[in-house]
Structure formats: structure tokens, C-alpha cells
């Protein structure tokens, strides 16, 4: 009887996973279903005729530009770091990831000032009494500026995936190829690039998902992407139906990117499981200078210049409200920690469940729950708000009117929204490592009589520990920088560092936000350094 039941019914484990996965998907379902109830034919016609061509073409242009630039920069730096020795290599190995600590909106504000007469360089000259002319040096407030700014802070995604792929997939063949007489560049083009294509595509997809979701930077720079279109249709026109239509288009684009990333990821991870010794070759003379330049330039543009500009603002700002800064830092830290723990927990469970379950629905859950990353934060916020108000109102109808909402406007709802939005960031690396390393032990353990939970705890978790740590760090930093979701869903008297920066910037007092901005970067630095030391231990 027991065996028959076990075969037919979904196990407790599978039901639990289904509930979990659906919980993460719920806001997306709400938004998509809104397309059928709210949107009618006429709004779709207007959307497709007036709105889509401009928004879609700008989005495509931005994505193509960012894809090409990040791929170039990410691959070349990863290649140089993996296989060559040159002065400063150990420094660049972690410095190259630094741009990840700078949110795109902050980079946009910083570069606008940097290339104008109120930037840090003219400012320093002004201190010595020299005025460097009054014209704008470079106008970054267009699509080219946007491509440049996004690429400079997003290339580390490609760098990380490519580097991991180089060490595990290419390294075994590197020395052999050299033995056959291929030069370094030839190895790169003929051997390495085809082998690491999946990793490159995976990294680029992640960077592009970040790009299409951004609102603060593209709006400020005057680039009309689909996300800008959604907000404008929603806020300026008050046309929620039209906005949802655009959100649907964005959702399709996001799903496509997501599927591309999925099918190509394969062995791509953020750490290497079996790093083959690459025995990096030394570079001499002009080659080593070239390598330093190639690695140094992204760091300078992605980190040094923006930080310099922000530090300049900080030095110019009159007063900083230290008490609100302290409170906001504590808030940022605690909510990021809480949400990160939850996301990693759910991601691990979903990954494990999707491989051990027999049910197709559960198996695909892990993939589908990552979709939230492709949706703009504000759209998720609407979905979450609808769900929480429905739950609250039905609860109140049982208990009786007159009492306050429990869920809506609470911390729990915000944390839940973070889970929906950032599940992909935790899921992707863990899932990748899982497929690579864990699946072969599962069957063995299962024949020994271990149930799924025990397999997870005793067998897989120890193997996955480094990946889980790496994924936690990435999720933590992402939540710390998050803005639109936090703005819409936060409880009363709740400020994170990101909201402080945003409010000063909106108040058109960008310089006053400098201390908060520096704090975001400082706090994000800790996990990045930790991540670096972690990868060091593995070598």
C-alpha cells in the first residue's frame, strides 16, 4: 500500500516545493492575468502603433551595444587573468569585479557630473584657481553614453562566468594547443571562444536582464527603453492597461533572454569545480603593458572614475545627516541579510527538488521561478501589492473591520518581493553547480535509502557550500542596491541606503547623497573581497 501511494501521489517534499515555487511565481501570474482582465483590444492597438516602435528599437539598440561591449571587455580580461602573468595580476583579479558594487543609476548620475564642468577634474583644478572652460566635455546623456555606462558596471558578470569557464573547460586544452604550435591569440579564437560560448552567453544574458530592468539610469540619460515606456504609460498617462501590455512585451523579451541563458549555461558557474592548473605564462615588455592597460581601463572606468566623482561630492557636501545614515545602513544590512538567507534557502531547495522529483511540474519549477529577474521591480511590486491586499482584506472580513492591515506595508511583503525579483541570482549559480557536481551522487545515495531531504543535507550541501557562499554574496549585493521595489513597497519610516541616495538625487541635490552612495559601495565591497578570498582558497 505504502509503495503504491509513494509511486502515484506527489510526496510531501514535492508538494512543499510546488507551493514554494508557486509562491515565488504568484506576482508574475497576477500581472500576466491582468492582461486579460484589464487590457482590451483598443489599448493593445495603441500600444503597438504609438508606443512600441520607439521603445523597442531603443531597447534593442541599448542591449546590442551592452552585449558587445561587455562580451569584449569581460572575455579579454578573463582571458588575460586566467592564462597570463603580468605585473598587477593578483590585484586585477579582484579589482575587476569592483564595478559590481556601483548601481547603474549611481553610475549615470556620477558620469553626468564627471564629464561636465562640475566634475571632479575641473573641480580639483578650480581649487588651484584654474578654470577649465565652461563647456560640457562629453555628453553622456544619450544612447552611446548609456551603452558606455552600463557596460562599465555590468562587464564583471561576463568576466566571472568566462573566468570560471576558462579554468575548467579550456585550461585542459590550453597547454596542448600551445604544444601544437598555436599562438596565444589563436588559442583564444580557435579553441577557447567556442568552448566558452555558453558561459559568455549566460553572462551576457544576466547583464542584459539587468539592463532592461533599469529605470533610474535610462530615464535620467534620456534613453527610452521598454521599461521607461512602462513607467511613462503608467504614471504620465495613468494608463495601467497600456503599461501592462508593455510589461507583457518586456516579459516576452525577458523570457527569451532567460531561455537563451538557460540552454547555454551548461557548465558555466561562478567558481570552478575542478580548476586545472593553467600555468600562466609570463608576458614581457610591451605585451605586459598592453595586458595591464586592458585590465586597468575597465577598472578605471567602471569603478575609479565613478567613485572619484562621488567622493568629490562628499567632500563638497556641507552636512551629512549621520543619524539617518546610520539607521539606513542598519536597515539595509538587516533586510539584505534576511532576504538573502531566504532566497538561498529556497533556491537550494528548488534546485535539489527539481532534479530529484519525478513530477515534471516540480522539475521545471526551478527554471520558472527565476523569471522574476526579467521583470521590472515596479511591475513585481504591483503584483505583490495586489496579493497582499487581497489576503489582508479577506482576513479582515473574517476578523472584522477596524483593525489595521497586517501584511500590506509590512517588512514581510518587501522581503517576499525581493525573493520574487532576485531568485534568479541565487538560483542560477547553485543550479549550475548542482547539475555539474551533485547529480551523480544522488542516485547512489538514493539506493542507500536516503530520502530527498537527507540527500540534500548530508550529500549535496557540503559539495555546494562554496557555490552557496558565492551566490549569497551576489544576492546580498543586488538587494543592497535595489531601488524601485523598495520605494513602492516599504513600510513607514523605512529608509535603505539606496532610497536615501535616490531621494537626494530626485531632490536634485545629488551631492548630498554622496555619503549614502559611498556606504553602499563600501558595504558591497566586503562580500566582493570575501568572494575573491574564497576563490583564492580553491586554487
Amino acid at each position, binding site marked *: 500500500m505504502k509503495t503504491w501511494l509513494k509511486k502515484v501521489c506527489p510526496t510531501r517534499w514535492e508538494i512543499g516545493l510546488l507551493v514554494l515555487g508557486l509562491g515565488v511565481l504568484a506576482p508574475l501570474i497576477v500581472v500576466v492575468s491582468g492582461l486579460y482582465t484589464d487590457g482590451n483590444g483598443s489599448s493593445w492597438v495603441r500600444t503597438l502603433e504609438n508606443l512600441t516602435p520607439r521603445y523597442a528599437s531603443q531597447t534593442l539598440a541599448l542591449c546590442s551595444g551592452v552585449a558587445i561591449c561587455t562580451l569584449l571587455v569581460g572575455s579579454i580580461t578573463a582571458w588575460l587573468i586566467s592564462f597570463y602573468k603580468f605585473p598587477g595580476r593578483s590585484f586585477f583579479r579582484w579589482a575587476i569585479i569592483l564595478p559590481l558594487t556601483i548601481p547603474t543609476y549611481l553610475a549615470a548620475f556620477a558620469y553626468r557630473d564627471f564629464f561636465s564642468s562640475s566634475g571632479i577634474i575641473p573641480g580639483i583644478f578650480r581649487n588651484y584657481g584654474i578654470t577649465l572652460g565652461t563647456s560640457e566635455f562629453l555628453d553622456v546623456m544619450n544612447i552611446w553614453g548609456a551603452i558606455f555606462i552600463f557596460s562599465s558596471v555590468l562587464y564583471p558578470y561576463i568576466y566571472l562566468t568566462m573566468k570560471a569557464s576558462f579554468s575548467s573547460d579550456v585550461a585542459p586544452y590550453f597547454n596542448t594547443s600551445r604544444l601544437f604550435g598555436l599562438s596565444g591569440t589563436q588559442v583564444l579564437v580557435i579553441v577557447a571562444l567556442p568552448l566558452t560560448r555558453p558561459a559568455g552567453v549566460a553572462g551576457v544574458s544576466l547583464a542584459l536582464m539587468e539592463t532592461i530592468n533599469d529605470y533610474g539610469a535610462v530615464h535620467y540619460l534620456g534613453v527610452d527603453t521598454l521599461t521607461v515606456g512602462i513607467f511613462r504609460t*503608467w504614471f504620465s498617462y495613468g494608463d495601467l492597461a497600456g503599461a501592462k501590455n508593455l510589461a507583457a512585451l518586456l516579459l516576452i523579451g525577458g523570457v527569451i533572454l532567460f531561455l537563451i541563458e538557460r540552454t547555454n549555461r551548461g557548465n558555466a558557474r561562478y567558481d570552478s569545480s575542478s580548476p586545472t592548473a593553467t600555468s600562466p605564462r609570463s608576458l614581457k615588455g610591451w605585451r605586459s603593458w598592453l595586458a595591464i592597460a586592458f585590465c586597468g581601463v575597465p577598472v578605471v572606468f567602471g569603478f575609479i572614475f565613478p567613485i572619484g566623482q562621488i567622493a568629490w561630492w562628499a567632500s563638497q557636501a556641507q552636512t551629512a545627516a549621520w543619524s539617518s545614515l546610520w539607521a539606513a545602513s542598519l536597515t539595509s544590512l538587516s533586510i539584505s541579510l*534576511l532576504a538573502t538567507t531566504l532566497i538561498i534557502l529556497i533556491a537550494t531547495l528548488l534546485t535539489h527538488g527539481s532534479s530529484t522529483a519525478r513530477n515534471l511540474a516540480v522539475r521545471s519549477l526551478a527554471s520558472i521561478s527565476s523569471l522574476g529577474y526579467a521583470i521590472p521591480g515596479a511591475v513585481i511590486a504591483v503584483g505583490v501589492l495586489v496579493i497582499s491586499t487581497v489576503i489582508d482584506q479577506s482576513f479582515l472580513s473574517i476578523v472584522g473591520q477596524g483593525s489595521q492591515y497586517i*501584511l500590506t506595508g509590512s517588512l514581510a511583503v518587501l522581503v517576499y518581493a525581493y525573493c520574487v525579483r532576485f531568485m534568479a541570482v541565487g538560483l542560477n549559480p547553485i543550479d549550475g553547480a548542482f547539475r555539474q557536481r551533485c547529480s551523480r551522487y544522488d542516485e547512489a545515495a538514493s539506493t542507500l535509502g536516503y530520502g530527498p531531504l537527507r540527500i540534500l543535507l548530508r550529500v549535496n550541501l557540503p559539495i555546494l557550500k562554496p557555490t552557496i557562499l558565492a551566490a549569497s554574496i551576489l544576492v546580498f549585493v543586488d538587494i543592497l542596491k535595489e531601488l524601485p521595489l523598495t520605494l513602492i513597497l516599504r513600510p513607514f519610516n523605512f529608509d535603505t541606503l539606496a532610497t536615501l541616495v535616490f531621494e537626494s538625487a530626485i531632490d536634485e541635490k545629488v551631492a548630498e547623497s554622496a555619503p549614502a552612495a559611498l556606504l553602499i559601495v563600501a558595504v558591497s565591497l566586503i562580500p566582493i573581497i570575501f568572494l575573491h578570498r574564497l576563490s583564492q582558497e580553491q586554487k
Partner: protein
Amino acid sequence: MKYTLPLIILCLIMSCRSNQEPEEVVNVYSHRHYTADQPLFKKFEDSTGIQVNILKAGADELINRLELEGENSPADILITVDAARLHRAKVKGLLQSVSSSTLNTAVPENFRDQENTWFGLTTRARIIAYSKERVDPTDLGTYEDLTNPKWHGKILVRSSANVYNQSLLASIIAAKGADAARSWASGVVKNMARTPKGNDRDQIRAISDGIGDIALVNSYYIGSLANSSDPADREVAQAVGIHFPNQIDRGTHINVSGAAVTANAPNKYNAILLIEFLTSIESQQVYAQNNYEYPVRQDTSLASILASWGEFKSDPLPLSSLGEYNASAVALFDEVGWR
């Protein structure tokens, strides 16, 4: 690992809102995020003992949230930086009418809703900032003059997505009709120095950088630049002059930043007290001195910097029109290609 899951569930339960609000509170949904406001709220708390809970976000997001929350929304007050959004909230039934003689005396009729659903806290004028070295102020006259070909390639203004521009166009629609407004907007687009980008402060900076010669901006930004701690900002403010358009006809377009009591406010009395406090003489002076906005109270003495800009005639158009014509304004902007 054994304790992690229960611990997390415990944290989540604790992070849900507790039903006990120990003392008197007032819950504010505000689009204003000027640093001048926080000390005012603190002062209110100290003098009345009522705790002020603030949620800051964009006005549209707040209105959307109020709609979704419905009857049990915890919000008592909605504060926006533009009259059109207040009107939108009123039309959606999210506000309630308030009868307070203090408020009626403090806020003149044209700065509050006719049915007393919202009250202005400060006003701001949409002025023309011009380059002192390249522009002769006598060449400037009305908003309508901006379509003159002599300004070709010289006008700087921010995106049409911003409410300040929408309300300006709405005031022109109300004054001259949709067709005249359309040709005005299209004329301005032809004279733009560049595609709209950045905020009002960026337009002023662009004058100083030589990209354009005149800009349509809100008055308080000039004050804020002139008193900035950054010397670069102060230089920028020195380089531009202020012109109040339409002094010979209807007057310069003004907008209000205002507060309203929400329809289902749980702490209605506290909400009225707070709005009365924000329109008191001391608070109005704080707005003028720290944020360079014009007070709505006519009996407040003007801060020196505001006085230095001189008196000006303001458009007496009822501010609810800004809300009524907002949708047409947005559609017109789209038609003429004002990005």
C-alpha cells in the same frame, strides 16, 4: 540547520505589522523629499506628541497604492509636489473634504481645492532662466514668445514626462485652447537646443555650459543652486538671471505642493492638525528660507532671496484645471514629439 527554518519563520512573523499603535499617530504618504521637511515633522511631534510616520515615494505610485489598499489604507495624508496629482487623487475618490477655519484663513482660495479636499503648502513659479552674458532680458516676454524663430536651438527644457511641464501646458490649454497649445508646444520643440534630458537643475547647468541660452525651470532650483555648498553650483547660479513670463497678460504659471486628507483616514483629526501646522507662519517661513519656495500664506514675510527676485503677477487660473487638462496635455506632448 535544524533551527534555521523555524528561526526564519519567526523573523517573518515578527516582521508583519503589529496591530498595536501605542500612541497618537498620523500616517503620511508624501512625494516631497526635501531635507527641509524632516525638521518640521520633528517639531510637530515635539509640540503635539503625535508621532509622524512617513512613506516617501512618487505621487503616482502613492495614488496607485492608495487605490489598491482601499478602505483599510493606513494613510491619513497625501502630499504631492503638483496640483494635477492632487486633482487626480480627488477624482479617484481617494480624498475627503475638510472643514477647518484655520486652514481656510491660512490658505487663500486659489491655492486650495474649491471643495476643500486639498490645501496648498507652498507655491512655485515656472520661470525662464536666461544666460546673463548672452541674452538681453528685454527680449524675453511671454511663454508664447518662445516659439519665435530667434530662439531656434536655444531653449532648454526637461522631458514632457515630468508633471511640472504637463501642468504648464495644461495652464496654456486652459488659457488659449488646445489648438494654440499644440502650436506652442510644437514651436518650442523646434527651438530646443537638444532632446529633453535630465532634470531642471541640468537645464540650468546647460545654460552655464553654453549648450542653450534659456531654460524653463522651477523657481526654487535657482535658490537652491545659489546657496549650494558646491562652488560649481554657485557659479552656475551666478551666470543665470530670472525672468517671470507673461507679466503683461495673465501672469506667470504657478503650481502648488499640497496636502490632502485621505478618504478613509484612520487618524483624521491628527491629520488636520498636521496640515494646519504646516501652513502656520513658522512652517511657511521654514519652507521659504530652506527650500526657496513661495509660502501660500499671504501674511508671511518673504525670505530675502525670494524678495530679491522681485514681486511678480501669477496666473490666477484655478489649480484644479491643471488636473483637468493633464490628460490632454500629455496627449499633446506626444503629438508634437516633445520627449
